[in-house]
């Protein structure tokens, strides 16, 4: 098993902030918008260095999406920032008409995705955002796994022409991908090669998948682990190549199993190479208050849940 080292726990939203700082210094067309959550989105440094390129819109997310669409007319590259819930469901029609259908180069950057914002509870958590956003024609959907990858993704999406949904989280999690990585949209990362089972994971579940894989390898099960940071467009080849070897797959995500990564993978398998699949995802439920670890345990989103899913899928081979 390839060894990955946590270089120190960090929140992925800080990776976004760090990426914005880089963009502020390197790309004069990048502008940032925020709906009264500067501290949560970690963009104070960008604002301090580029005050004229920052727009505080207040608690008015619909207006923020429209202003972002308008800013592209004149060549700006707007990055909107608020919680994932308020970045998607609350403003779906604004994104649909003014951004996606209009083909605007807006980067919708969303913190506090999934369950792991914790104690605020279900009003502020969202487990439906990947589904909402991947259904919009032309929308790119990205869910990086750690601080370094989020920073790299933030920088990369500025170079991509077209609307992007970038999803990240609140809690400090393992930071294990390379600091200087080049982020390629739509290209899955092979983290560990194996032959018995494939685990494809996205976001916070990637580290959990690595922990699970190590435990399984210790029991003699050869596990392939793939980081799917881009849910749309999906790296279909990476998935198909892997199941051609392993013959079964577990998908893992901090999202409802309706509409998430798992269903995207199922479509690819059904059309090309049907193999047994198990889903590590929330089973059509809202979240609740609790610590991130408690929530991941209760809703079956941690390394133990992944091990269980692998055991189950292996029996179905």
């Amino acid at each position, binding site marked *: 098993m390839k060894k990955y080292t946590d270089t120190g726990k960090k929140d992925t939203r800080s990776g976004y902030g760090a990426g914005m700082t880089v963009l502020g210094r390197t790309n004069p067309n990048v502008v940032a918008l925020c709906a009264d959550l500067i501290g949560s989105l970690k963009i104070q440094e960008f604002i301090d260095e580029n005050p004229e390129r920052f727009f505080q819109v207040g608690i008015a997310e619909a*207006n923020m*999406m429209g202003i972002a669409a308008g*800013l592209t*007319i004149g060549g700006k590259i707007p990055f909107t920032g608020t919680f994932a819930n308020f970045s998607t469901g609350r403003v779906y029609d*604004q994104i649909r*008409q003014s951004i996606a259908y209009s083909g605007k180069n807006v980067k919708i950057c969303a913190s506090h995705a999934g369950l792991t914002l914790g104690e605020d509870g279900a009003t502020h958590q969202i487990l439906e955002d990947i589904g909402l956003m991947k259904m919009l024609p032309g929308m790119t959907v990205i869910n990086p796994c750690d601080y370094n990858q989020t920073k790299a993704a933030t920088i990369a999406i500025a170079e991509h022409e077209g609307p992007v949904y970038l999803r990240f989280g609140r809690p400090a999690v393992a930071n294990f991908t390379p600091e200087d990585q080049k982020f390629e949209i739509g290209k899955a990362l092979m983290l560990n090669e194996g032959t018995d089972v494939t685990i494809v994971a996205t976001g916070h579940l990637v580290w959990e998948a690595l922990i699970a894989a190590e435990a399984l390898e210790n029991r003699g099960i050869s596990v392939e682990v793939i980081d799917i940071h881009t849910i749309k467009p999906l790296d279909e080849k990476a998935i198909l190549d892997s199941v051609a070897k392993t013959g079964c797959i577990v998908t893992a995500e901090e999202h409802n199993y309706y509409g998430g990564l798992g269903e995207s993978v199922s479509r690819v398998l059904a059309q090309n190479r049907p193999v047994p699949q198990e889903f590590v995802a929330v089973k059509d439920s809202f979240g609740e208050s609790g610590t991130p670890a408690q929530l991941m345990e209760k809703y079956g989103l941690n390394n133990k849940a992944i091990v269980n899913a692998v055991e189950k899928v292996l029996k179905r081979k």
Partner: protein
Amino acid sequence: MSNIQQLNDLATQVRRDILRMVHQVNSGHPGGSLGCTEFFVALYNEIMELNDQFDMDGIGEDLFFLSNGHISPVYYSVLARRGYFPVKELNTFRKIDSRLQGHPTTHEGLPGIRIASGSLGQGMSVAIGAALAKKLNKDEHLVYSLHGDGELQEGQNWEAIMYASGNKVDNYIATVDYNGKQIDGATDDVLPLGDLRAKFEAFGWDVLEVENGNDIEAVIKGLKEAKNRTGKGKPVCVLLHTVMGHGVDFMMHTHAWHGKAPNDEQLEKALAQNPETLGDY
């Protein structure tokens, strides 16, 4: 530029275009289109500074955003007759494989359109964004937008209205088509707008009213005055009093023709009131 007679002739021809377009496909929104004809004719032929070639960024020219996208017939006719695309393309309105979708969109690449609209209440935010981009680009040109009065029932407008004054977006003129009508009836009956002037002023806008929004000279005078008021720290609102269905006697003073096309007989009667001036498409 153009004299008043020429602009009125153009307005009459635009009315014919609107009526013929919606009649041909038996769908579309003639009422608001007819009511805003003078506004569009004045804006695109007398008020805005426009580049010869259309490009999305619109650097070095004025920009316009239509928020109440259902009045696409008047928008398409005026754009075509201003040279954005061939006038004969008006013949494709609302048909399959057309660039002239039921509501305006950038999706099919129709020159002159910079945003999709139709789902109401979004255009002011977009216009504000474009105005902010102009300021960042040190482009002195202005941004214009048009909104239905009923459309102001959408809450996003008030987020945008608050933002524009709070952030001194003073290179922006938003016009409200103040015809007092919407699909289900009078705005006063559906959901009263109250004192619209006082509302905009309370939000910190500079407001002016054009009492006869179907008199081309009055519209030009009002929009020129609005231009004079830009650059002074406040966004500018024009309350444009129009008559829905203006120019066709049986379509005026009623909401009945908001989204209904005339039949053959009605079309003939309507066209007789608007004789051909510049040639039908």
